[in-house]
């Protein structure tokens, strides 16, 4: 029997293969993000405005809404035809299921965020040249935390009987520290020209660590056939 890492890879590969066949999630999620950016940008009239003011807000709102949609869909994949029961009946730790879903969500989110950021850069002339590495690092750390919380709550709320919008309402307040911290970090880097701030990075990393551990542990209790 393969070890947990192999199992995680196997499950994530299966998820991505299903996604590639059904082509449901990635397109929908990316388009949603783009739509959000366009609406916000038009509403705020940000053409030509310097980055670090409004840019992080636009990007974050786009990430939040499309991210939640993404998490819902990857979990819903297991609800068809009782597929989740098949996984639960297999000789794997529940935490493995969590890790694989998280990896799948991260992979999809990363693609989506690259596309959305490019669109925002082009449409609103956001200038990331001051600190592209810093921007990538902050976004990546934030995405990990967001995807972790999102995967956990998507698993708990995944059911055909529940109303839509529930996942967003639960995930957004929990993720606000990510929004605050990444906004402060990006503003610091782009507007004030500061280097990557270690307390801020520490907070992002702590957020990720705390919720990774909690989700791994909670998955044992939270998944129901």
């Amino acid at each position, binding site marked *: *029997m*393969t070890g947990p890492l192999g*199992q995680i890879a*196997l*499950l994530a590969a*299966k998820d991505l*293969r*299903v996604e590639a*066949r*059904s082509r449901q999630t990635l397109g929908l999620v990316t388009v949603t993000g783009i739509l959000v950016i366009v609406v916000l940008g038009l509403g705020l009239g940000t053409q030509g405005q310097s980055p670090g003011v409004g840019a992080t807000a636009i990007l974050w709102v786009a990430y939040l809404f499309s991210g939640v949609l993404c998490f819902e869909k990857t979990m819903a*994949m297991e609800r*068809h*035809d*009782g*597929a989740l*029961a*098949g*996984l*639960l*009946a*297999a*000789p*794997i*730790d529940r935490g493995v299921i969590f890790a694989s879903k998280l990896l799948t969500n991260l992979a999809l989110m990363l693609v989506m965020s690259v596309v959305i950021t490019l669109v925002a850069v082009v449409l609103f002339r956001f200038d990331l040249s001051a600190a592209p590495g810093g921007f990538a690092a902050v976004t990546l750390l934030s995405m990990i935390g967001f995807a972790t919380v999102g995967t956990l709550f998507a698993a708990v709320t995944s059911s055909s009987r529940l109303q839509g919008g529930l996942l967003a309402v639960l995930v957004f307040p929990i993720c606000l520290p990510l929004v605050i911290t990444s906004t402060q970090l990006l503003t610091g880097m782009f507007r004030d020209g500061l280097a990557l701030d270690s307390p801020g990075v520490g907070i992002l990393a702590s957020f990720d660590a705390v919720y990774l551990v909690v989700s791994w542990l909670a998955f044992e209790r939270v998944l*129901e*056939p």
Partner: protein
Amino acid sequence: MTGLKETEPVTAAATRLEAPPAMDVARRVASVVAAAGVCLTLDDRHILQDIELEVPAGGTVALLGANGAGKSTLLKVLATLLRPSAGRLRLFGGDVGPHAAKLRSRIGLISHQPMLYRDLSVLENLVFFGRLYGVPGPRERAEALLEHVGMAHRADDAVKTLSRGLTQRAAIARALMHDPDLLLADEPFDGLDAGSAAALEALLTRLRAGGKTLILSNHDIRQALALTDRTVVLRRGRVVLDRPSRELTPDAVLKEIVGP
């Protein structure tokens, strides 16, 4: 978990092993399933109460009862999908708690839902589950199984394109990929056409002859009695009847299902 009860049969006591189950234990252990005082309470509702069930290796059990009697729940508990709130459950001689993951590799589950990914092909599904269970040479085994259930010609078709009967056959192949010693079937005949139902009956009979342990819930009492050597009836979460199938008539069983 409660301790040993005085009323436990000697065979069960003799099979109490403290070491984690090894692959050859099945040959030495008499009981595949040993449930003692198993209860399941959810939201303060008692779904299963004081379930005593002992199934030896190679035994076949029909699990019957009205809707809501607890059959599906009991099968899920035996498949380790649900955790009992009280009582003791041993599978293959090992306590379910600490060794649950390892024990699952010897259990196969069929339900009225196929548990397959509809966008993947039948073969891809089987190979995935094979790899998940650590089956060596999953592709060859999958192809052989599909031959066995008469589905080799649809192996590369997406599951969503299959009829209900064929989907169920694919589900059965999935359940058998890892050659489980214990097969749990939750109303597997639900919604099957006559041809697929006959094929499933034949398959279950073959498995029975091959010494597999089988616990099957069903609505057709006559069919259940014919396919198994023991019948257990649940009513409102309790075992009300546990007798060899050949001693029972469909009417007698029906009476127990419905109650006084």
